[in-house]
């Protein structure tokens, strides 16, 4: 009885906090948790008929039998793995290089400049690359022409399109990652380096034994963020691809988009999204578990 009144008193005391909390919490319930409820559509035939009926796992059966789905799945894995392999180390390396700069102004300016593309939409980034790689006026084809090579239509080339996706991904995201690493590097205690220098450690050894261990939790966090986006690669492809490169660039999300938005097959598209969501969740929790065990440092 007493406890109950206590809670009432606390609630009354915190009434202003609850007033502040309420709109935001309502927003989360409506715009996040209701969409979770909407995932139920994956088990129905929503989209075509006026009357919606439950169809069990039929959508998933169709999914696993679809060659287009497996092609999209393969492309997603290939593009995302390439992104991780080629993109992931670059911001770290760039940050270590920035950290070696002596002048503070230079450090700041480099960070300022390389962060800029991160603010551009994929439409802008795509347009910039389309401009560089244009068969008629692009600088790359101009250079190739100087060597007597026939102009290449990169955006329609199944051979080159994935490379364009990866390079433009690096171009846009590099600064973002580097700035985070630089910020973490600045928190490393300089005394550690002095002590190591006295003990006779060279620069490379210092980097290996002090710098990298000091920022390992940041590295793992960044890896986890990357992994959580592995299957979600979408807008970049959506903006840049065209029907001549579907075979090498159609990813799970663009497939879901075409099925759901363009063909009106909403239930089936939801099934694809549900699959992507669950696998991504497992990837994130898995990395978190890994980080807990190996580094004694949980990220979430």
């Amino acid at each position, binding site marked *: 009885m007493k406890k109950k009144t206590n809670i009432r008193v606390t609630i009354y005391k915190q009434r202003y906090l609850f007033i502040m909390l309420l709109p935001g919490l309502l*927003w989360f319930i409506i715009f996040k948790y209701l969409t979770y409820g909407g995932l139920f559509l994956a088990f129905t035939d929503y989209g075509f008929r006026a009357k919606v009926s439950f169809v069990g796992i039929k959508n998933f059966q169709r999914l696993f039998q679809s060659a287009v789905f497996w092609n999209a799945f393969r492309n997603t894995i290939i593009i995302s793995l390439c992104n991780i392999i080629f993109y992931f180390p670059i911001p770290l390396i760039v940050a270590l290089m920035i950290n070696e700069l002596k002048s503070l102004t230079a450090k700041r300016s480099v960070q300022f400049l390389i962060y800029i593309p991160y603010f551009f939409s994929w439409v802008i980034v795509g347009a910039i690359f389309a401009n560089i790689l244009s068969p008629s006026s692009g600088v790359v084809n101009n250079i190739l022409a100087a060597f007597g090579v026939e102009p290449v239509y990169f955006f329609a080339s199944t051979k080159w399109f994935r490379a364009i996706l990866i390079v433009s991904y690096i171009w846009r995201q590099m600064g973002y990652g580097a700035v*985070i690493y630089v910020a973490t590097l600045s928190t490393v205690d300089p005394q550690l380096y002095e002590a190591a220098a006295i003990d006779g450690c060279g620069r490379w050894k210092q980097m290996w034994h002090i710098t990298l261990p000091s920022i390992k939790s940041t590295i793992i966090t960044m890896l986890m963020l990357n992994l959580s986006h592995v299957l979600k690669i979408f807008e970049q492809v959506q903006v840049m691809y065209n029907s001549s490169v579907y075979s090498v660039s159609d990813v799970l999300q663009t497939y879901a988009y075409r099925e759901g938005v363009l063909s009106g097959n909403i239930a089936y598209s939801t099934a694809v999204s549900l699959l992507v969501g669950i696998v991504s969740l497992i990837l994130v929790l898995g990395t978190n578990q890994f980080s807990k065990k190996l580094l004694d440092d949980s990220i979430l």
Partner: protein
Amino acid sequence: MKIKESKSRMLFRIVNVIILALICAVVILPIWNVIVTSFAEDKDVMGNAYLLWPRSLTLKNYLRVFKSGYMKGFVNSLYVAVAGTALSMLFTIPLGYALSQKQLLFRRQIMRIVTLTMVFDAGLMPLYVLVKSLGLINSTWSLIWPFAISTFNLIIVKNFMTSIPESLIESSKLDGCNDIMVLTKIVIPLSVPILSAVMLFYFVGYWNRYTEVVMFINSNEKYTLQVMLRAIVFQGDGSMGDGNIVYNNIKMAVMMLGMLPVLIIYPFVQRHFVSGLMLGGVKE
């Protein structure tokens, strides 16, 4: 021995600076090309010119763009971004403050509800169905409400507010301030750096949105600039309305419109991007 080491060190520094300069060039030159081309005369962009040095300087392209339908898209984008950012801050700040107060009842549970949305996302279709059943299809609000809170930004704000000394808040409460007064008089003024950074992130998010605009909006009148931009660049849509071919200089002038607001705001907010701002967001 010592001299030799400093020599190799010197060499390393020089190579380091050269590589970083090259990286900066790779980032900046394509953007510079857009700027230069957008000010170029028609005759200078015909054929296979990739301009890095201005051959002509004219405002003609911009005047043509201002008179075209792209201006409508620019205004639409600006409206969504400004109204959206205002709404986002209105939702994010009070929620962030409430969650930063350790005594808050059910704080752990509410934090769980919030953080789950960071790792699990329902995807496009459930959101589409929701927006549709809320009657927001083809309404500008469909580009604002679903994006009012970014969990990432919320947690950045909450973490910063948690780091404000409790004694400060306690003493003003003893002076008779309630939580709303504490927030507006003490916490918000102290959080200006983080709030301005978060504001930029929200603005950029609204400004750059593409996929959802195509999904939720189905009238040309309400399309945002990004949608029009993709049409002119990738679908060769020459909708300048005057029947002329769209040269690169016009395209680049439209692209400049698409980059401008962000390029204007960024330098003012950049100095707040220190101290692991973003990563503070991921760690509880």
